[in-house]
């Protein structure tokens, strides 16, 4: 199964979620120190980045897009299903619900091409605040996966 964490504009949230999913001992400091976290450019939009394989054997990816995310996901899932791949082989998880004002301001500064200490501070603060929510999102995903595994076993 392929799991893609995605978000609008910046990879900060999906990257954190994917990292937690693969290794639940991940710390904010480690994510913030990642060199490409603030290396923003539109070339990353739509690209799938591999993070690792989780304990269930699922491949974990993360991705960012510009806008119209729901259209994007519907189109991918729709076409993939017509290619004979089961829909539940591909799970997209939107991490945008974990965003907060600090991350939004950080994103805004990135959009203005301002990558400086202030931007990093906003991201650091925002990610620290969002970490709990992201962990919860990952936990929910893991529960969903466990449920799917159980239902397959019972079949």
């Amino acid at each position, binding site marked *: 199964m392929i799991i893609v964490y995605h978000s609008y504009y910046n990879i900060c949230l999906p990257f954190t979620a994917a990292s937690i999913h693969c290794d639940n001992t991940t710390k904010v400091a480690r994510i913030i120190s990642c060199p490409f976290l603030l290396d923003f450019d539109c070339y990353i939009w*739509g690209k799938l980045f591999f993070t690792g394989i989780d304990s269930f054997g699922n491949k974990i990816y993360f991705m960012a897009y510009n806008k119209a995310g729901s*259209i994007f996901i519907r*189109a991918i899932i729709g076409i993939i299903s017509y290619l004979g791949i089961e829909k539940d082989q591909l799970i997209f998880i939107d991490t945008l619900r974990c965003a907060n004002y600090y991350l939004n301001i950080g994103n805004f500064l990135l959009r203005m091409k301002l990558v400086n200490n202030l931007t990093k501070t906003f991201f650091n603060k925002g990610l620290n605040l969002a970490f709990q929510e992201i962990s919860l999102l990952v936990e929910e995903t893991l529960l969903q996966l466990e449920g799917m595994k159980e239902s397959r076993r019972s079949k």
Partner: protein
Amino acid sequence: MKIFYCCYGGTHSSVVLAWIHVGRLPIDRIPSYFEITKLPYYDRIGQNRIGVPCYIGNDDIGNEIFVIGLGSQKRIFLNAFQGLLKIININPNKELIIVNSLSQLNCFIRIGGFISRRLGLVAVGRLLTVWGIQIRYQEFIRMVKDVKYLVQKGKAPLVLN
């Protein structure tokens, strides 16, 4: 092979191209207003359905024809989609083609589509889109012929503009 005709909303130009491809619209004359507006999916896909592929039918050599709206982020979508195809080991050249019909649009279709789908003024918008399509109809036929030729020769790329 699966052929996906795509445009912004997947409800005007892509629908007409797909119906020309399956043979429901004529290739020797320009169809009337009613012939176009009575096509399934024509000017009927709402905002919440953009992105969902709609099956149109099979052409004379068994290719499956679909229409899909990709919104304004087609380049980003194709980035992600190609990445995903690699991950799941699908060779897109043998399985599908995405035909971009946006290159065939003129201002009447664009404005008509906006008026009908966004502003909800269906009667005015639909009239404009049909008018625009009738003006560009010969180009539509040429595009479908190109697609059929490339598919038959096995030379079709993943994305055809």
